[in-house]
Structures are given as structure tokens and as C-alpha cells.
């Protein structure tokens, strides 16, 4: 006896859906030109970055801070040369510290900032390679990918920013890495996990790039296969969150997560960055800090800023460009929001995405142009020629507009005074037991010259703001010996009385440069000073 009658085939219809065909690996569109083109572009970028890299642009306010913090990490002092107050996550300058051996290898005796800029070239060149690969994975033609790289390298604004020791550049490298992994051709789960780790690396290098991370998630969403998408996104989120968690955990372990009396805290600093920081005003308000910042960007390169922003808005409508377009838009809007704080290097985060959107739109336009039945066949050749001529003229115009800015970066020495002042102090001031007040660009050099870090070489902000420094100076300005007054120091905010006092009661012993850029080494009046311990 069988049970067929109990379970007729028709009673349980086969529920199996027809299995879909096996998902294919995304086509590798590598062309023969890719490798030599990439090599050539990298060499070209190295040249563009390398020429005169220590001398232009002028040392920025934050560069020295990051380098000094990197120095502190390298020396095993801690995460900063003064109290680390969670102003930024430390991963950026930890990397700088790890790269510290590199400049020593090739340049010794040059100012610390020049060495720092040499380390930054590693990030700039890595970004160039990643940008090209990302462009190719967005299925842009090699010429379009090369265009993106050219925009990214040759824009005077980009070139100047990329040379400088800014955490944003480091974060951008990591974010491009994340995007590259997110666009994995094999759609490999562990590539997406790697993307999460890279995105976390970006945020731990510069926290504000957090806003661009959803663009990476978007790329994963679009690129991954339906069948594994949930796991891919989970892998990305897990790797991102867990890697990131190290930072608050560090703060918690030090008892510095929550704000409280008598200690710095991560949340307190985060609150300060988001809400407490002095607003730069609205970009549309002439005279505000934001307006000046944006104006400076436009002065250096109106092309990439304006055309890039416009292109990223337009690129939102192009499917393959949506991820970089979203990143560019979010970063731009973040900068434009009224009432926020707009740092001068903020645009550095948007630049690779502007370049991608511009090149991507050019690629899309060419594809549409080639495909379209826009003209009767006999008109096509002349129209094509005209388009080519137009593109050539456009490129020429852009090149001309970049000429002045790039020439300054390649020729002028904007930092000669800094270097000379540093040398003068080293040669003429006895470092032992001497207290010298400097800005953060000179600080690492003073330490290298033998001044006691923190209490001998004193970063001017800390004179009036850091109790750990003030405790060493019971006599206030009277306990100081030298002040090196630099443009950076002249732009100091109000409310640094000790510094102001020290400058007033001192004489110039050496001066370098003229006018606004003048650097003075000043000795504090010895007759007014009480005996120092």
C-alpha cells in the first residue's frame, strides 16, 4: 500500500519558483590604456605636487597643530602636545606620525612643516590613484577618468589644499578607498566590510566627512546584488560602527566621554564643534567669515567650485554618478548652512566629488551625443568638429584661468620668512631653559631646536587658555623670554592678555619680510622681568 492517494501531486503544487540564472560578475572594463594612463597620471600628479611644495602656499594655521600632535604621538607623549581635548579624532595625525620616517629620509634640516607636507604627498597621490579607479568603476571612459584626475590635481585651489597638512585630505583618501571598495566588481562581501572600515578611517581622520558616508552606503546599495544586498549592507554598517566605536571607547576608558568639571570630554568637544563654535555667518552675508572663505576659494579657482557644485546638482539625475553627486551635494550644503562654522579647508572634502561629477557629466554628454539622432547624417561631422573645438576652447580657457594660481604655487616661496625666522632662533637663541612663544607652524621647529616642548616652546594660544601651561608661568608675561610674532599670531582672537602684554613689553631683535607677512623675533624686556625660577 502506498500513500500516493493521500498526497496527490496536485494537492501541493510545486512552489519552487524557477531559479534565476546565476548572477554574473560585473564586467571588468579594463582597457589596455588603463595601466600606463594611471602610471602617467600619478607621475604627473607627483610632479605637480612636488615642485616647490614646501614653499607654496603659505603655512596655514592648523598645519602646525596637526604636525605638533603627530610629533607628540611619535614621541610617545600622548595624542597631543598639550592636553588632548577631542577637537578632532586623532587617527589623522596618528597616520602622519606613522609616516614621519618618510620626510626624514629625503629632507633633513628643513622646517618641520615642509617635512609634514612631504608626508601629505602620500595621501595626495593615493587619492589620485583611487580617484581614477573610482571613476573607472563608475564606468567612465579612461579619458573621462583622466579628466577627473586632471581637475583634481591641476585646479590651483585643489593643488594648494592638497599640499597642506590638513586632516581633510587624509579623510578624503580614506573615503575614496571606501567608495572604491563599495563599487566592488566581484560584489564581494568582504570588500563591503572593508569599505565600512575605510569609511570609519575617514571619519576618524576628520569627523565632518561623516556626512558623506551615506554616499558610500548608496553606492553599495546600487552596486550589490539583490540576493546578498542585506548582508553586504550589514557588513558595511558593522565594520563602520565597530571601527568607529574605538574612539568613544577610548574616551570612556579615560573617563572623558561625558562632559564634567575639571576634565575635557568627547561629547563636550562634539557639542562645541556642532553648536558652541563661533558661527562663520551666512555665505550670503557680505562681510561674514563664511563669505570671506568662499570668496577665497572662488579667487583661487572659480571653475571647480562653481562648475563643480553645479555639476554635482545635475549629476544627481545621472544614475551612475549618483553616489559622488550625493557626497558632493551633502558636503556643499553642509558648508553653506547658515550659522555653522565653515573652516577654510572644508572644500577639500568636496573636490574629488566635484571632479568626478564634472568628468562624469562630460562622459555622459559624449555618450548621448554619439548615440543621439540629433542631426541628419551629413551634418554630423561638422557638428562633431564644432563640439570638439568648443571642448578644446573650454579646456584652454580653464587652463588660462588656472595659470596664475599654479605659477605662484610652483614658483613663489611664500614661506621663506618662516624658514629664516626658524633658522635665526636656532642659531642665536640658547634653547636651554629659555621660554619662547611661537605659533603652531614654528612650534615643531622650536622643539627640534632644543626648546623644552610645552614649557620652553610655548604655543601662543596656550599661554592664556591651558591651566597646565599657566601653572609654569606664575609671573605671567614676565616669565617669558622671546615671542616670535607671525601673521598667524597677529590674527589672534581677543582675550589673550598675557600674549598681548608680552608683545608690548618686548623689542624686535630680528625681523624677516615686510608688511603683513613680516615675522619678528622679539625679546621680552629683561629689566622688567623678575627672577624666574
Amino acid at each position, binding site marked *: 500500500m502506498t500513500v500516493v492517494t493521500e498526497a496527490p501531486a496536485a494537492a501541493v503544487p510545486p512552489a*519552487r519558483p524557477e531559479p534565476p540564472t546565476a548572477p554574473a560578475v560585473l564586467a571588468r572594463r579594463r582597457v589596455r590604456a588603463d595601466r600606463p594612463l594611471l602610471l602617467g597620471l600619478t607621475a604627473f600628479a607627483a610632479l605637480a605636487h612636488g615642485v616647490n611644495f614646501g614653499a607654496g602656499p603659505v603655512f596655514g594655521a592648523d598645519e602646525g597643530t596637526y604636525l605638533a600632535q603627530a610629533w607628540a604621538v611619535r614621541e610617545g607623549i600622548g595624542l597631543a602636545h598639550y592636553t588632548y581635548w577631542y577637537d578632532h579624532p586623532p587617527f589623522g595625525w596618528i597616520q602622519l606620525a606613522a609616516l614621519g620616517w618618510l620626510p626624514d629620509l629625503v629632507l633633513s634640516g628643513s622646517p618641520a612643516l615642509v617635512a609634514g607636507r612631504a608626508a601629505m604627498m602620500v595621501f595626495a597621490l593615493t587619492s589620485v590613484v583611487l580617484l581614477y579607479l573610482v571613476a573607472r568603476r563608475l564606468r567612465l571612459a579612461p579619458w573621462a577618468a583622466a579628466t577627473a584626475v586632471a581637475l583634481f590635481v591641476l585646479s590651483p585651489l585643489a593643488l594648494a589644499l592638497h599640499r597642506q597638512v590638513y586632516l581633510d585630505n587624509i579623510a578624503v583618501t580614506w573615503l575614496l578607498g571606501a567608495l572604491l571598495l563599495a563599487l566592488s566588481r566581484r560584489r564581494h562581501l568582504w570588500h563591503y566590510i572593508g569599505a565600512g572600515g575605510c569609511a570609519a578611517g575617514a571619519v576618524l581622520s576628520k569627523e565632518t566627512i561623516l556626512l558623506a558616508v551615506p554616499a558610500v552606503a548608496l553606492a553599495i546599495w546600487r552596486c550589490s546584488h539583490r540576493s546578498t544586498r542585506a548582508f553586504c549592507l550589514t557588513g558595511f554598517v558593522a565594520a563602520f560602527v565597530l571601527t568607529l566605536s574605538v574612539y568613544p571607547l577610548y574616551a570612556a576608558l579615560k573617563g572623558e566621554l561625558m562632559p564634567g568639571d575639571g576634565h575635557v570630554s568627547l561629547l563636550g568637544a562634539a557639542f562645541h564643534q556642532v553648536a558652541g563654535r563661533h558661527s562663520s555667518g551666512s555665505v550670503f552675508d557680505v562681510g561674514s567669515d563664511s563669505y570671506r572663505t568662499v570668496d577665497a576659494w572662488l579667487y583661487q579657482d572659480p571653475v571647480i567650485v562653481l562648475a563643480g557644485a553645479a555639476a554635482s546638482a545635475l549629476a544627481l539625475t545621472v544614475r551612475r554618478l549618483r553616489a559622488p553627486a550625493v557626497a558632493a551635494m551633502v558636503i556643499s550644503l553642509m558648508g553653506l548652512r547658515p550659522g555653522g562654522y565653515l573652516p577654510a579647508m572644508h572644500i577639500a572634502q568636496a573636490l574629488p566629488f566635484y571632479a568626478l561629477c564634472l568628468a562624469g557629466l562630460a562622459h555622459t554628454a559624449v555618450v548621448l551625443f554619439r548615440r543621439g539622432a540629433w542631426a541628419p547624417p551629413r551634418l554630423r561631422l561638422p557638428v562633431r568638429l564644432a563640439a570638439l573645438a568648443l571642448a578644446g576652447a573650454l579646456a584652454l580657457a580653464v587652463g588660462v584661468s588656472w595659470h596664475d594660481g599654479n605659477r605662484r604655487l610652483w614658483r613663489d616661496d611664500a614661506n621663506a620668512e618662516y624658514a629664516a625666522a626658524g633658522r635665526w632662533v636656532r642659531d642665536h637663541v640658547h634653547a636651554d631653559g629659555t621660554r619662547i612663544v611661537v605659533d603652531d607652524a614654528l612650534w615643531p621647529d622650536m622643539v627640534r631646536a632644543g626648546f623644552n616642548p610645552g614649557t620652553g616652546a610655548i604655543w601662543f594660544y596656550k599661554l592664556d587658555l591651558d591651566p597646565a601651561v599657566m601653572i609654569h608661568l606664575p609671573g605671567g608675561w614676565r616669565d617669558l623670554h622671546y615671542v616670535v610674532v607671525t601673521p598667524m599670531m597677529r590674527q589672534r582672537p581677543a582675550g589673550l592678555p598675557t600674549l598681548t602684554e608680552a608683545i608690548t613689553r618686548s623689542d624686535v631683535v630680528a625681523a624677516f619680510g615686510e608688511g603683513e607677512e613680516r615675522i619678528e623675533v622679539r625679546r621680552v624686556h629683561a629689566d622688567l622681568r623678575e627672577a624666574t625660577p
Partner: protein
Amino acid sequence: MAATITLWWTLHAWRTPQTLYATRFAPPDGSHGHTFSLLLPARHEEAVLAQTVRKLLQSRHQGFELILIVGHDDPATATVAHELAAEHSQVSVIVDHHAVKNKPKALNTALPSCTGDIVGVFDAEDQVHPDLLTHVDYAFRTTDATVVQGGVQLINFHSNWFSVRNCLEYFFWFRSRLHLQAQRGFIPLGGNTVFVRANTLREVGGWDPQCLAEDCDLGVRLSSIGCKVVVAYDALLVTREETPDTATALFKQRTRWNQGFLQVLRKGDWRQLPSRRQRLLARYTLASPFVQAFTGVTTLAGFTMAVLFNLPAGIALLSYLPLLPTVGNLFFEVIGLHDFGRQYGLRIRAVDYAKLIAGAPVYMLLLAGAATRAVFREWRGRRDWELTRHVGAHLLPDVPTPAAADA
């Protein structure tokens, strides 16, 4: 390190869309070329046996005989078995007269009576899909496999605090990990829904009657002589089982498995594996319950101590790093649970996710405890069989069919 390897292997199936696709059963052509002898050992399982047998008899592949194996000291189960045999011509009963009973002895007792060219093993509480044999038949015909391992899935994830984790373990094991093991040529087989060519099974002498993990041991021996094992998984076709009904039962079951793994490791059949890589994999696989249990507990303990004793932040952070893959695993378990619910048409509620996460450390401790106990028992030479009791929780209430889930 160990946790990262585990994570890598656990996620094997989802590595790329291609690997996921490769884990499916190939769709059969509808013809039947093999005959099956299905062995179903039952011990004190009169409550679930009849339903299991009726379900098996609904198979759309009718070329099989069903051999129920009951103990001579278990009249209740024997009565049910004989009733079933009287009702259905495909069913026969074999009585196991061993004084000390265990599953491998029961299976060996039945092996000489098998007439089919494929021997399949099921447990008394299994819910088998009517299309399973057709697919297995096709798998044997289209690959040169000696063994076909089908999927097994625990279903009653809502029964108690650990069942959701237990279900997920099976899900990840059959959905993912086993495929990787098969691909690498070393596989500890599961206890049921496993099909072996009868000739080969007789040649290797059936199951090891002394081994507590006879299924694992058979897989290792077959792998060692170069037999090809094909793993095929399909949510529709998996055999449904239930979790142990109490934490103690789970603890005992794990002790038995772990001890079985230890025995297989000590027997050393895996040393005959051809490549060094396979031997390494074998060693790692067989030792992994212990490695996993202890690394899990020690990393957790290390980090807790670092925090409690106020060690420097750097050291505490270092002790945190090994925890990352373990915590990362939790993320994948959450999404795995979601996937599990989707594939089996089960509604997963927020409380189940909460149980999954909250239960993790306790479950880890339980596994570590079972691993310790297994080592201890093996060392003391206690090798008796602690059977898992089944109450049929996966049968009641009626489990929705996957067909409904896909609709």
C-alpha cells in the same frame, strides 16, 4: 583571529552573489534513477514517530524503503512502528538488541537489510519535504558524489531564550559553512538528511559504534578516502527539527557533540587527507568548538578585567580589538535572523532580536561550559550516550509552509 576565521567561514555563502547561487540545489529533471533505503532510528519517540513517517511517505519519489529501528526495551515506540509497518508496505521495522544503545549501533543493525543503492538517515522528529528525494536523486546522478548532505533547520525559534540562537547556528551552518567545508574537501557530516551510496557505506564498515559523533566521524572517514560530498541547501527542502527543550538538554547535547569531535580528532582518520591544507582544516574544524568557546570567553573576560581594573586606556583598547569580530558576528546574526524568517515564512518580532542579542554572552558561556565538560568527560573516559529528548515543538503549532512564505 579565531573569531575572524569563524566569521569569514560563517559568511561564506554570502561572499559574492555567485557563491550564494552555487549553494542551491540544482533543479531536478523529474526522472528518478536511484532507489533509497531510509533509516529512521527511534528511541522513546512514540509521540512524533507516526507523523514523521506519514510525512516521509508523501515523498513524490516513490523508489524507497523506510526502515524503522527501535530498541528491544522500548515497547511504546515499537508498537507505533509495527502499526505503521502493517499499514504501509514500504515501511519495515528492525529491532536493535544491543544491551547499551546508541545511534550508530542502531544504524549498523539496519545496514545489512538495506536494499536500495542509496542509504539515507533521518531522525524520528524530522519533517521531510516531499520533493527532497527527487532532488537528492538528481544530485547523485548529475555529480559523481558519494555523499549528498541536505539541509537541516531548527524551526522553533520562539520556544525559549536560547532556541533563537540555536536555530541561527543551524541556519548559518547549513546555509553557509558546510558548503565551504565541502568545497575544501573536508566535511563533518550532519546527523540526518544525509545520503550515502550503500556500497561505499558497506566498504567503510558503516558507522563507528563507539563514537559519540558518528555522523561527523563518517564524514571525516569518507573525506579521508577522497569521497566527494555535495551539499545542497534550499529553504524549501530542508528537514525541519526542533531545538532541545531545556538549557540542560542543550548543554548535554553539546557536550556529546564536542566529545564526539574530540574522539574523531583523536582517532586521526583525518591524517589520511591528501593535502596539508585539508589536514589543517580538519584539525581546525574538529578543534573549533573548543577554540571558539574559549576564545569567546577569554576575550570577553579580558576586556571586562581591563575595564574593571582600570588598566591604561591603550591596553584596554588592545583587549577590545579581539572582541570586534565577535560583536561583528552579532550584526550578521541579526540580519541572518531576518533572512531566516523571510526564507521560512516565520514572523520574527523585536523581542526575538532582543533575545538573540541579550542571549549571546550566556549562550557563549553555555557553549564554553559544554566544551569544558566534554574535555573532562573524555579525559575521565565517560563515553555514554546522553540522548536529546524531543517533544515535537516544531510540529505544534502548525508550521507555515515555505510556499506560503514565498507568496
